[in-house]
């Protein structure tokens, strides 16, 4: 790890002010620190946002669940309020990595990082979330731009994410056997006016699978997907799963997810 200046941000303003050309926000550090240790990245300034008060906590209203950016996966998984409002979201958080990762890793860090095989981005899309930042509010559909790429500006801090409460929903993750990130993760949410099927792990960035959504819009049952063949020309292919196999996993995960929706 190369040397850097460490800043402990007291509040959002403080964090934004401290950011520079070669700075990074530090939240759970589960991605940032390993990449610095491996010398894949280095910074002049590292700004710790994990302890900022305004970035903590979970608020539930009748329509939405709002989670502070510095809330850990473990906190989300353990929250009775989340479990009651959106059980699939609590399930998702509880399946991320291992206990150490969940005790450190945070929602804000996860979506700001936008790993193509991370779980939370699919929740943001499927639950039609709004990302609150130090500057503005961004619709989830406009937030995830590409592989490790988001709509965030250099000095823009994610402060919270507001998830809409669906009628029913389910997240089915097929983990990469080695890393246990999502080789494919499918988040199906049935909202009052539409069905969203968000897929992570399968392409460069999280996306809505329109083919599945169309079938489910007509008939919300796993059988409605029986004869579907997904186009896999855009899918990732690596030593763990070819594009063709990933496509078949997306389908079977979607079917399981629909079956889980009550």
């Amino acid at each position, binding site marked *: 790890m*190369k040397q850097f200046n460490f800043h402990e941000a007291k509040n959002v303003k403080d964090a934004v002010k401290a950011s520079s050309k070669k700075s990074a926000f530090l939240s759970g550090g589960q991605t940032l620190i390993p990449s610095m240790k491996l010398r894949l990245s280095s910074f002049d300034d590292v700004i710790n946002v994990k302890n900022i008060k305004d970035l903590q906590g979970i608020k539930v209203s009748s329509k939405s669940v709002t989670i502070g950016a510095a809330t850990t996966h473990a906190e989300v998984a353990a929250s009775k309020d989340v479990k009651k409002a959106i059980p699939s979201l609590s399930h998702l958080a509880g399946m991320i990595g291992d206990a150490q990762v969940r005790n450190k890793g945070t929602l804000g860090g996860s979506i700001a990082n936008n790993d193509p095989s991370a779980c939370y981005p699919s929740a943001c899309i499927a639950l039609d979330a709004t990302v609150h930042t130090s500057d503005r509010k961004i619709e989830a559909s406009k937030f995830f731009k590409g592989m490790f790429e988001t709509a965030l500006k250099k000095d823009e801090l994610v402060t919270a994410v507001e998830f809409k409460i669906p009628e029913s929903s389910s997240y089915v993750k097929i983990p990469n056997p*080695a890393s246990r990130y999502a080789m494919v993760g499918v988040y199906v949410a049935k909202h009052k006016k539409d069905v969203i099927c968000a897929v992570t792990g399968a392409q460069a960035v999280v996306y809505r699978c329109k083919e599945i959504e169309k079938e489910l819009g007509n008939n919300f049952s796993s059988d409605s997907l029986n004869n579907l063949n997904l186009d896999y020309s855009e899918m990732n292919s690596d*030593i763990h799963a070819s594009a063709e*196999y990933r496509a078949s996993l997306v389908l079977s995960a979607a079917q399981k997810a629909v079956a889980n929706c009550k």
Partner: protein
Amino acid sequence: MIGSKVERKEDKKFLTGKGRYTADITLHNQSYAVFIRSPHARAKIKGIDTAKAKKASGVIDVLTGKDLADDKIGGLIAGWKIVSKDGTDMKCPAHPALATDTVNYVGDHVALVIAESLQEAKDAADLVNVDYKVLKAVANTGDAMNAEAIHEGIDKNLCFDWELGDKAKVDEAFSSADKVVEMDIVNNRLVPNAMEPRASIGDYNSSSDELTLYTTSQNPHLSRLVMSAFNALHPEHKFRIVAPDVGGGFGSKIYPYSEDVVIAWAAKRLQRPVKWVCERTESFLSDCHGRDHITKAAVAVKSDGTVTGLKVDTIANLGGYASLFATVTPTYLYGPLVLGLYNIPAAYCNVKAVYTNTAPVDAYRGAGRPEATYLIERIMDKAAKEMGMDRAEFRKKNFIKQFPHQQCLVHNIDSGDYDAHFDKALNLADYAGFEKRKAESAAKGKLRGIGFSTYIEACGIAPSAAVMSLGAGVGLWESAEIRFNPTGNISVFTGTHSHGQGHDTTFAQIVSDKLGVPVENIEIVHGDTDKGPFGMGTYGSRSLAVGGSAISKACDKIVEKGKAVAANMLEAKPEDIEFKDGEFIVPNTNKKKTMGEIAFACYLPGTYGEIKSPLPEGMEPGLKETAFYDPVNFSFPAGSHICEVEIDPTTGETKVDTYTCVDDFGNLINPMIVEGQIHGGLAQGIGQALYENAYYDETGQLVTASYMDYCMPRADNFPEFRIDYTCTPATSNPLGVKGCGEAGAIASPPAVMNAVVDAIGTEVTMPATAEKVWRALKDKKSAQKKAA
């Protein structure tokens, strides 16, 4: 004590983070080293520019292969000579510890940067400019013999073309067979993945000319011998190797690596301690890997199911160079074992060992025996199916039934009862109820399969005369020294090394039983060439059978001396003294001395004015005995394993639903430790079957060089293992033990794969990943459609 589940004495320090590993050691004035490694699988080194790096902040020196050669430090060696079938010796390329002209795998050692801090060493490493001319790499085992030679003068990349067995007799068996069953078998490449990566610290004392190397070794004495005699690093009597707590090895830490040689040399050259600690990806690239065979096998079968012949044709990948035990692993640790525990009267095994531009391949848990077992157990399964026989019955029909049994290849098996453990396993696994469970799985939309595996291994490595006649560079006896302290507690020195095996406990149990001293008063000392006598380290499930036997022999000598001393003190004859439960007794009297009293007496405790010695006249004082033990034969653990898997046909994912093993390890000293060894072995074997694969792409880049891509099995991949034993004591050592360290890794890959193949009804190679299984099912379906 022997046979009881004594809690491991060493666990407290390990579980509370108090272990002392090489990386935990910090010496005064220590410097830090980083290796520059080749990013190319094969390249010529046109030049190395170290000028910039040498000037960087904190840099002490940058050393290259030229410096090493200038100091006349020798290269690494292959320690076991194999002779090809045409009578020529194996061909091994020069293997300098730092490359001079060419690099032969990604991770090969090119230069060493030494600085005041690790940070500065890493920064400076970025400034070393190596000018490579990249050459076309040979990355694939199967292609090696048809590719350009990677080492000058080694035609076809062939190290040796070795054979074992009677070819004519085998041909005869095949020509008179009722059925010939053939099979292509791939044994995948694995990375050992010890929990603790390798590390070395060199320390040179210029006033005494003593060189010390702290290193992660399973075998410190042999490392010192090799580094003294072959690398000409430092004379043995001035060279100390300390292998403190070592966090696992699985074979990958048996022998000295380039890093050991270079770090010890650098410390001497710079006259300063030099520390190097391997990082995980560095470990993936530069630790020796395991397995990597491609085999064509065939069995000749009579219509009644008797197997009459076995033919094996193997290409074994050695990687870029021949590592220390690399040549024996695919030959004498493999060939003789391909017979399994079957009475096959004729066999022939041909092994061609090839060089490729990949990390060297050497012994890894089981070394040769897992490859042999995988082969015979997969083909026995296939043969049974093709003969239309029950796979369990087919195996039983061909078991060796009488002991001792001279196999047609090499081994003379002293003891065993193969029906006993196989029947017990069938019972424990409820083979009779399998069809019902299969139907239950089918009702859930799942495919269920059952797989058998029986195995035999040759452990207790090894009778010196036997192995030296087969090409070993040293005999493989073991040593022990029992040193009583005057207050009656004991230090036991062993030439074996514990890096997870629990010797501190098992060996103490033996000594406790033999000498009647409580376990807590016995300290097992290993891993320091300055402390104990020369020994041969730990691998090949040898430590108990050979090292434990040496300890047992040394205990006998202690008792013998004790009897003489007791006789003198009790005014009896030595031959009349009985030793039992730590007491020397004159039978039919109340006269006795405890072991502690005798030990105390041996150190001649003086009382002012007393002149009578407790020792017989002329006897040397002190109570310390050394023994060397050279086994009369290998030991032959055997067992039967049964695996049931359940497969989700929609994803191809395999779940190991039940796993049963019944092993015959001879006598068990500590059943809890044995169980731990089985668990670990099974985890690695099931890992090989379903998850692990070291994958090089065609340019020779290791694609799976971190845990993001190399899949290690986790606890949640396994069911609760059902474990039981049978026992036929070994006759080749005084403890009657056979060895249990490798069995799990040897037996389980074929058990799992036979179950997977049974479930899906078509072939698939290891690791049977979800996608491979999914694809195999898909291909089978479309083939069936085509046929219909």
